[in-house]
């Protein structure tokens, strides 16, 4: 993991490359594997560079909390959680206010694509663990959750993926890592379902002009289409392996 604790003097060098050698609109290597756990109905392991996230799906099944039953659709349960060893300094496993908010935001990123009305009175549960955090964990979580839902055979209108756009040295940069997130000027996580043309997660932490925000959204959407293709490849690959 990077050990940079201080604000770097500059984020982008003379050749226009970032601290880790990427160009402003370049993603880190994306890797997606599905069916990585045996007990869960569906699972996925997603990495964006050093950021590693695992997601598992159970359901549709009886809701863990009886009171949460909805008569006309399945309830979606989502937990976003960071492993104690995922961060620079050990993180207490007790859920923080940040994790409570992000669980909600990730759930709301998935709600528009899950065909929950097919399973009234049930629960579809999504458990996400951040195994290693190097920026963009919530967006990688959306990608992992989407792949795990599909791996579980949950009917969906489309796949979702996420990526964060940041701003460093006044330049918009795609898929920010931890240093760019901590010391940069803005962090704008976006998730979308490209096949539906629907943006399902949208946040901004930091300061942008309207023009920067508009360009940042387009930058994110382009990357999201690429990540969703990766999800599809991983899912197709897993079916072919099963067929053999």
């Amino acid at each position, binding site marked *: 993991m990077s050990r940079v604790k201080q604000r770097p003097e500059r984020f982008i060098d003379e050749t226009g490359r970032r601290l880790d050698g990427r160009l402003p609109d370049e993603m880190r290597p994306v890797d997606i594997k599905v069916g990585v756990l045996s007990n869960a109905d569906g699972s996925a392991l997603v990495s964006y560079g050093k950021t590693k996230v695992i997601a598992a799906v159970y359901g549709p099944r009886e809701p863990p*909390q009886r*009171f*949460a*039953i*909805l008569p006309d*659709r399945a*309830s*979606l*349960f*989502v*937990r976003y959680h960071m492993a104690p060893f995922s961060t620079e300094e050990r993180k207490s496993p007790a859920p923080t*206010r*940040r994790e*409570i*908010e992000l*669980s*909600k*935001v*990730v*759930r*709301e990123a998935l*709600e*528009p694509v899950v065909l*929950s009305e097919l399973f009234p009175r049930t*629960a579809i549960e999504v458990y996400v663990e951040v195994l290693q955090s190097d920026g963009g964990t919530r967006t990688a979580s959306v990608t992992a959750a989407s792949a795990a839902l599909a791996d579980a055979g949950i009917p969906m209108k489309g796949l979702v993926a996420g990526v964060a756009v940041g701003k460093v040295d006044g330049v918009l940069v795609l898929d920010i890592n931890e240093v760019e997130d901590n010391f940069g000027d*803005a962090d*704008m996580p976006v998730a*979308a*379902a490209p096949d*539906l*043309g*629907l*943006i*399902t*997660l*949208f*946040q*901004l*932490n*930091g*300061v*942008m*002009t*309207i023009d920067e*925000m*508009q360009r940042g*959204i*387009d930058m994110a*959407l382009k990357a999201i289409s690429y990540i969703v293709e990766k999800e599809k490849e991983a899912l197709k690959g897993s079916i072919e392996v099963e067929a053999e």
Partner: protein
Amino acid sequence: MSYTPYRLPVVSRVKSESLISMLKRGLRSDQRDLVSPRNITIEVGVIEKANGSALVKLGKTQVLVGIKIEPGKPFPDTPDEGVLQVNSELVPMASPVFEPGPPDENAIELARVIDRSLRDPKAIDLKSLVMRPGEKAWVLWVDVYVLDYDGNYFDASMLGVMAALMNTKLPEYEETESGELIVHRDKLTTPLKLNKRVVLVTTAKIGDYIVVDPNLDEELIADARLTLAFDEEGNIVGAQKSSIGGYTRSELSRAIEVSRKASQIYFKLLDQALQLGKQAG
């Protein structure tokens, strides 16, 4: 763990359809057009024991904000800054669907959106809250109380926070020879230093329409909501999409544009309300 809300009030299909057919004609149930917020009143200094306070009414939604300033320690990574703590309570009296207990995900989201919208654009001069770098600093507690909920507690809360911060005063203090602090809570003299003002603008997407400052019925039938934070120069200093739907690319652009215009209305109303408050005081 977050789960699909199960206790929301139900809007009848008749009402929902009539609201949408009104939107088609550019009208809303409370006589507004699509881009105007509800009537706003702001009363400042309503809690004498607080360092700053404000009661905001945005239509029928009411939010009370209290600011308390307590002596404390700076965080180790920011030794030259005071500490900002934002908390919000959706108290059970405010709505038949709010429950007692520790803040739920909605209350936590509200507090965190306000916190980020103050912190990221450096709206408060936190450096002015340091007494001795690394050792002693003021802790600024911002407590947001949603008292009556008729939709859009985001915008109402932020107006309340801004109004309360603008009339917040720091207490006088002395240091004894042994380095202890004596705080004179009854002597509130120094106004809190603010660098800039920020407002939140929430829009709801209902079918093909984007409406500013949704009331409760509108929130309940909306596909999704977007809350944007603006400074007075028109920069976006925070964003949060919420609720279970999504936005197309062009809807998102429209919501951003409509919100930017509405932010100017909020700044104007904030000015007016505070001036009226001064005259009355």
